[in-house]
């Protein structure tokens, strides 16, 4: 189903930020914003949060426990072998292995989670509202469908007033949240 969007294009970070602020003040819902580099202020304004670090912490914990358990099982329970007089449970050696395997686990799991949550994977074709977002423009996208016409227009006006170089309305299909 196609949706209509109001798109404001800025070439200055400050103007772009003040537009977001004032859109927020007017309680206008912003679909998303697009920037050529990460702007931390935006994360605060739009209350964007990532729980990836928490997830990674638990991946790490799981990795440590699983690795140590695996090492203990293989070297002590399943097939104990004497190497150079070392005890079966040669803990200092295990620590080295555990560090690396844990790192490995965390990486793979975090990458997978990132890919799944951000919907980024090879061949993925996410909607590009305006290709200049990856070059030098800052872009605010406001949803026009499902809101009153006046609200959508207000958003456009605000952006124009606050220094958008261009404001347009476009229709896109298959837009995901």
């Amino acid at each position, binding site marked *: 189903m196609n949706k209509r969007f109001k798109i404001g294009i800025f070439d200055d970070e400050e103007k772009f930020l003040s537009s977001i602020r004032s859109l927020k003040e007017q309680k206008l819902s912003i679909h998303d914003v697009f920037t050529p580099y990460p702007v931390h202020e935006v994360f605060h304004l739009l209350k964007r949060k990532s729980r990836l670090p928490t997830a990674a912490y638990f991946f790490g914990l799981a990795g440590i426990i699983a690795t140590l358990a695996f090492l203990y099982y293989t070297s002590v329970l399943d097939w104990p072998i004497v*190497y*150079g*007089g070392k*005890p079966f449970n040669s803990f200092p050696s295990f620590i080295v292995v555990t560090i690396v395997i844990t790192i490995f686990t965390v990486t793979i799991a975090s990458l997978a989670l990132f890919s799944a949550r951000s919907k980024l994977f090879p061949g993925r074709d996410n909607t590009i509202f305006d290709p200049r977002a990856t070059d030098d423009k800052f872009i605010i996208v406001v949803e026009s469908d499902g809101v009153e016409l006046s609200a959508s227009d207000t958003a456009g006006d605000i952006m124009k007033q606050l220094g958008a170089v261009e404001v347009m309305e476009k229709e896109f299909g298959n837009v995901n949240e």
Partner: protein
Amino acid sequence: MLYHDYLKANWEKVYFQFSKSSDFMNFWNQSLGNGVFNYTIPVGSPLKFHGEELSGAMKSVPVANENGYEVIISESVALGTGMHANNPWLMELPDPVSRQCWENVAAISPGDAQKLGIESGTLVKIAEGLILPAFIQPGQADGTISVALGYGHTGSGPVCNNIGVNLYPFAKLADGNRSYGFVTDKLENTHKNSQLALTQVHYLMEGRPIVRETGLSEYLNNPAAGNEQHSEFESTHKSLYPEIKYDGFHWGMAIDLNACIGCNSCVIACQAENNIPVVGKQEVINRRIMHWIKIDRYYSDSPDDPKVYFQPLACQHCDNAPCENVCPVSATNHSSEGLNQMAYNRCVGTKYCINNCPYKVRRFNWYRYTNNKEFDFNTASDLGKMVLNPDVTVRERGVVEKCSFCVQRIQEKKLQAKLENRTLKDNEIKTACMQACPAGAIVFGNLNDKNSMVSKLFDDPRRYHLLEELHTLPSTGYLTKVRNDEKLNT
């Protein structure tokens, strides 16, 4: 068929008379079937010693002038007169003293070498048509050159053809006696070099307690003389690992350095028993000889009058083996009987164990030595493969191997004892080296059995381990050499 007839006729003439059989064909077939014919030669009158004639013969030996050299032509330890030159095992067996193989060399004294600017490997001309690589032999008297016989074959087989120089033409007949030596007035440095196939290139111990020795009277005073470090190291041995108990067997080997004469029998016995490949001259030059046991030879410091030490060195089967720790694929680990064992099939050839072995007794299969025409020694032809011992695996290229304490023999005897429902007797298992040692220097057995020969030798105050300070806990012990040399005591 000609040779067959000749052989048969010879047997009929020489050996048939000793046989109890009446029919020659019967005797012939029987001997052929057995593969051997045993007989006793009737002893005639005892031989007499003729002193005068000896001194006469001595007089006929030519004496070199002041600037000349006496050339001594000797039998080599490995090849003897050259009869077995085509045997690759013997061809690759290093000389006990020079530690060199695959050709004959002109051994000259360090003094002469220095005088003429000769180094080991320099080609020297001794006589017309006799150019040999020189070898500087500590202890060789100035003005003498010694060269081994038995090399330089031309039509005797693929291994020995065109290897070394034939010295027989220079062993002239004089007064009806063959003179194994001649005099030459010059030793010419040709300023050309060849590489010698040496199996050991450094010959000093560098003051390290590798071969420990003492004098007889000191030994009589204190049986631990010369071995003081052993108790010292033993007292400081602190391990961070829990001690491992070996129930049942704990195999060990004691090597008496006093008995070892450096004859190399153990080397060949081991090679034959364990299917150890022969690698050829170039690979020996590349320091890749495969012998599982080798006899290290050290000289005492003075090159003019050195004392010689022999030390058989094989895998020490350490209980805290540094090599086992580092193998990533578990190819080498410790058996419940104290053996440091190799699983050839598991080995991927990282060579880490070779590096981490302080004794450097592990060997690597650098090339494929079987079915490879480039290594046409024993295992490239169907006939050659007849020498292989079926009880021992032939190793693949890229695999590490080493002394196994003849584990196949251990298993065989253990099984036999089990079938006969009895305990294993001491000395029942003989490793190949132990079996071959003419001096009884090598003793193998169970260290857990306090009455076994090896345990008794381990209780000897002369016992020590090589590189004790590393706490590798070898299962091989050495016994201090006791010299009959009273000078040592002063």
